[in-house]
C-alpha cells in the first residue's frame, strides 16, 4: 500500500521547517492515516508507505526527494532496523523509528542501528512537530565535518549548505546533487559519522577511513577473531590515538553489514549464478537479505559483480546483472550520476578486467578472508564490456581515467583516483584497495600529476606545469607571507607523503595560485584542508586584481581543478 501525496522534487519554497519532506512507513493503516494527518498539520509534505520495500523503492527513485524517514520497527516484509540501516547507508537520511513497544532493548537497538530518534506509540502531535530538528542537525554536522575535514570532498557540497544557512531556506539533498555533489552521498557513506553519539559535544572531526586505517581495522578484527570482535578491542589493537570507540563501532557496524552481504553473494554464487527467483525465499532468512534483493532488482547489463572486502580484495565475477559495488556496506547503484560516488564504477569495471587476468592470491598478502574467489566465467565477455564501458561513462568518469594514465604506479598511496585499466595488475589491486577506502582521502602526489583533472574529487593539489605559472607569478606583487603560509599548508595536505611534493619554489607558487583563487572568491572555494585558510583569506585586496588578471590567463591554458562549482570560502 503506497500512496504518494504530492510531488516533491522541486526545492521547497516555504521557509524551513515547513514543507519538510517526510516519508512515513508503517504497515498499520490506521497509524499511517493518523501520522499523515498529523504531519500535514505540521505543514510537512507527507508521503506514506505501507511496506518497507515500497519505501526503499521510493527513496531510491527519488534520491534527494525526502528529508527524513519515519518508520515503524515492525514491518511485515522487512525488519525495521534493517530498513533503518539501509536508509542510513544508502541515502544517509535521518530516520526516526516508532513502535508501540518501548522496551529499553528495542530502543537501544534502534539507536545502535542509527536511528536519530525513537518514538513510542501513541505518538503525539508535538513529538512530530519537532522532527525537523534531526534534519537540521544533520546539515549542521555535515557542514562542520566538512570544515574540519582534512580531505578535499569538503570542497563540494557546502555551498548549498551555506546558502541554506544564509537564506534560511532549506535546501534538500537534491539541491546539492549537482555533479560535484555526489560527494555528499559518498562522504556520508564512507566517512565515519556516528549519528547518535551523544558524547560529542562540539565539532566532531569526521574520521576518514583511509586504506591504511581500514587495513589496521581489518587486521585488528582478524586478530581478535571476527566472532569475538568488539569496538573497544579493535580500538586498542589498532593503536590509533585519535580514533574513538564510537568511530570504530560505527565502522564495525558497516563492515559487518558489508560482510554479510558478501556472504550472501557467495552463497548465491554457489547456486550457480544469479537467479532472482532463488533470492526471494532466502531473503527473509538472511541478515542482509534486503540488500541483496535490492541488488538484484537493479539489474542492468553488466556482467559481474565486484566486491571489495576491506583489505580483502574479493573479486567475484558473478554472472549477475547487478552493477553495484558494495563498499563498506554502501550500495552504490548504477543510477548515480557522475561524481565521487562513481569513482567506483570505473573501478569496478577495471577490476573486472583485472579479475580476468587472475590476480594471484599472493599479491594480496593482507588478505585474510578465505573467500577470495576469482571466477573466470565471464572471461569472454568482460574485456569488451569493461573497456567499452570505460569509454562510455559519464563525463566525470572519463576525466578520471585520463588523468591517471600518467601516474606512476609507485606513487599510489591513499589516492582515490581511478587507475587506468590498462595498467598492470598490482596497480589495479592497489587502487581497488584505495577505492575501497574511499574517495575521502585525496592526498595525491602532487608531482605526479602532469595533467590536471576535472575530477570533483578535489585534485586541488593537482598543479599545472610549472611553466605556466612562473612568469605570471613573478609579475605580481605577491605577498611573500602568503607563500610562506601556503608552503606550510602545503605541508599539511601532503602529510601522507613522506617527501615534499615540491621541488622548486615555482611549484610552491603554483599551489599558491590555486589557493589564491580561493582568496579571490572568484569561485567559492573552500580549502578546509589548510589551517592557514584564514591567513590566505586575509590577503590584502590590492593583490586581487592582478591575480585575477593572471587567473584569466591561466584559465585559458588548462582546466583549473580547484575551480569547481559549489566551492566556497568558509
Amino acid at each position, binding site marked *: 500500500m503506497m500512496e504518494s501525496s504530492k510531488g516533491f522534487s522541486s526545492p521547497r519554497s516555504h521557509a524551513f521547517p515547513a514543507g519538510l519532506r517526510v516519508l512515513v512507513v508503517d504497515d498499520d*493503516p*490506521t497509524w499511517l492515516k493518523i501520522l499523515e494527518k*498529523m504531519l500535514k498539520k505540521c505543514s510537512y509534505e507527507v508521503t506514506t508507505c505501507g511496506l518497507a520495500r515500497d519505501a526503499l523503492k521510493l527513496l531510491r527513485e527519488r534520491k534527494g526527494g525526502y528529508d527524513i524517514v519515519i518508520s515503524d520497527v*515492525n514491518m511485515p516484509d522487512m525488519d525495521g532496523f534493517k530498513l533503518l540501516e539501509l536508509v542510513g547507508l544508502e541515502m544517509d537520511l535521518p530516520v526516526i523509528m516508532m513502535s*508501540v513497544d518501548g522496551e529499553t532493548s528495542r530502543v537501544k537497538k534502534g539507536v545502535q542501528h542509527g536511528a536519530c530518534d525513537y518514538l513510542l506509540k*501513541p505518538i503525539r*502531535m508535538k513529538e512530530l512537530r519537532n522532527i525537523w530538528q534531526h534534519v537540521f542537525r544533520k546539515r549542521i554536522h555535515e557542514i562542520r565535518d566538512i570544515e574540519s575535514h582534512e580531505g578535499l570532498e569538503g570542497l563540494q557540497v557546502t555551498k548549498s549548505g551555506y546558502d541554506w544557512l544564509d537564506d534560511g531556506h532549506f535546501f534538500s539533498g537534491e539541491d546539492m546533487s549537482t555533479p560535484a555533489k555526489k560527494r555528499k552521498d559518498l562522504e556520508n557513506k564512507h566517512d565515519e559519522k556516528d549519528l547518535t553519539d551523544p558524547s560529542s559535544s562540539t565539532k566532531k572531526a569526521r574520521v576518514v577511513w583511509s586504506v591504511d586505517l581500514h587495513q589496521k581495522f581489518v587486521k585488528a578484527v582478524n586478530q581478535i577473531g571476527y566472532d569475538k570482535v568488539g569496538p573497544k578491542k579493535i580500538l586498542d589493537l589498532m593503536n590509533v590515538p585519535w580514533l574513538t570507540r564510537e568511530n570504530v563501532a560505527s565502522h564495525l557496524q558497516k563492515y559487518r553489514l558489508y560482510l554479510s552481504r558478501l556472504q550472501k553473494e557467495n552463497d548465491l554464487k554457489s547456486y550457480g549464478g544469479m537467479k532472482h527467483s532463488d533470492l526471494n525465499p532466502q531473503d527473509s532468512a538472511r541478515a542482509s537479505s534486503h540488500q541483496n534483493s535490492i541488488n538484484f532488482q537493479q539489474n542492468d547489463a553488466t556482467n559481474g559483480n565486484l566486491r571489495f572486502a576491506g583489505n580483502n580484495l574479493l573479486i567475484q565475477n558473478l554472472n549477475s546483472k547487478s552493477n553495484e559495488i558494495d563498499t563498506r556496506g554502501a550500495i552504490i547503484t548504477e543510477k548515480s550520476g557522475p561524481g565521487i560516488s562513481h569513482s567506483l564504477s570505473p573501478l569496478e569495471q577495471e577490476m573486472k578486467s583485472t579479475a580476468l587476468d587472475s590476480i594471484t592470491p599472493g599479491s594480496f598478502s593482507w588478505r585474510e578472508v578465505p573467500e577470495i574467489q576469482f571466477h573466470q566465467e565471464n572471461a569472454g565477455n568482460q574485456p569488451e564490456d569493461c573497456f567499452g564501458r570505460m569509454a562510455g561513462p559519464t563525463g566525470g568518469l572519463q576525466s578520471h581515467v585520463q588523468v591517471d594514465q600518467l601516474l606512476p604506479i609507485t606513487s599510489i598511496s591513499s589516492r582515490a583516483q581511478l587507475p587506468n585499466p590498462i595498467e598492470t595488475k598490482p596497480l589495479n589491486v592497489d587502487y581497488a584497495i584505495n577505492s575501497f577506502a574511499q574517495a575521502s582521502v585525496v592526498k595525491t602526489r602532487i608531482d605526479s600529476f602532469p595533467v590536471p583533472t576535472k575530477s570533483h574529487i578535489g585534485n586541488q593539489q593537482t598543479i599545472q606545469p610549472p611553466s605556466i605559472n612562473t612568469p605570471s607569478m613573478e609579475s605580481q606583487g605577491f605577498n611573500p607571507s602568503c607563500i610562506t603560509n601556503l608552503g606550510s599548508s602545503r605541508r599539511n595536505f601532503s602529510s601522507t607523503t613522506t617527501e615534499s611534493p615540491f621541488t622548486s619554489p615555482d611549484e610552491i607558487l603554483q599551489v599558491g595560485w590555486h589557493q589564491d583563487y580561493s582568496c579571490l572568491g572568484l569561485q567559492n572555494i573552500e580549502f578546509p584542508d589548510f589551517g592557514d585558510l584564514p591567513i590566505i583569506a586575509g590577503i590584502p585586496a590590492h593583490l586581487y586584481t592582478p591575480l585575477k588578471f593572471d587567473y584569466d590567463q591561466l584559465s585559458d591554458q588548462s582546466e583549473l581543478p580547484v575551480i569547481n562549482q559549489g566551492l566556497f570560502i568558509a
Partner: protein
Amino acid sequence: MERNNQLQRQVALMRQSLFDQGYLDEQFVQLEELQDDTNPNFVEEVVTLYYRDSARLIASIEQALDKSPLDFNKLDSYMHQFKGSSSSIGGRKVKTECSQFREYCRTGNGEGCIRTFQQVKREYSTLRKKLEAYFQLARQAGPRGAASRST
C-alpha cells in the same frame, strides 16, 4: 433547537463517560484535534480503519491459537500489531489486555494466552459497540455534536 442542544449534551456526556470508564485515552482526543474542515469525519474514518484492520488481526490470532503447538512468536507478533492499532485510536482497555496477552506469550503460557485472548475480544467488541453508538448519536446531534473540547 432545544432537542439539538439536548442531543449535544448527551453526546458530550457519552463521550466523557468513555474516558471516565477507561475505554478511551488521550489519544482519542488527539484524533479529535486532528479533525478539521478538510477532514470533518476524520475520527470516524480512522476508527473505521481500525475496525477493519483489527478484525483481520483477530482472525489471524484465532487461527494461530488453534494450532498445536502454539507458535508464541507469531502470536506475540500479531498481538503486537493489534496493540499498536488499538493504541492509535486510544483503546485503553483493549491495550491493557493486549499487553497481558503478550506477557503470556513471553512466558510461553498457552493457557494464559487463550484465556486472555477472550478478554481481548470482549474488550474490543465492547469498545466497538460504544464507539458506534457514540458516533451515531453525534451524527444525529448535528455537525458540531461530536466536538467537545472541554476535557
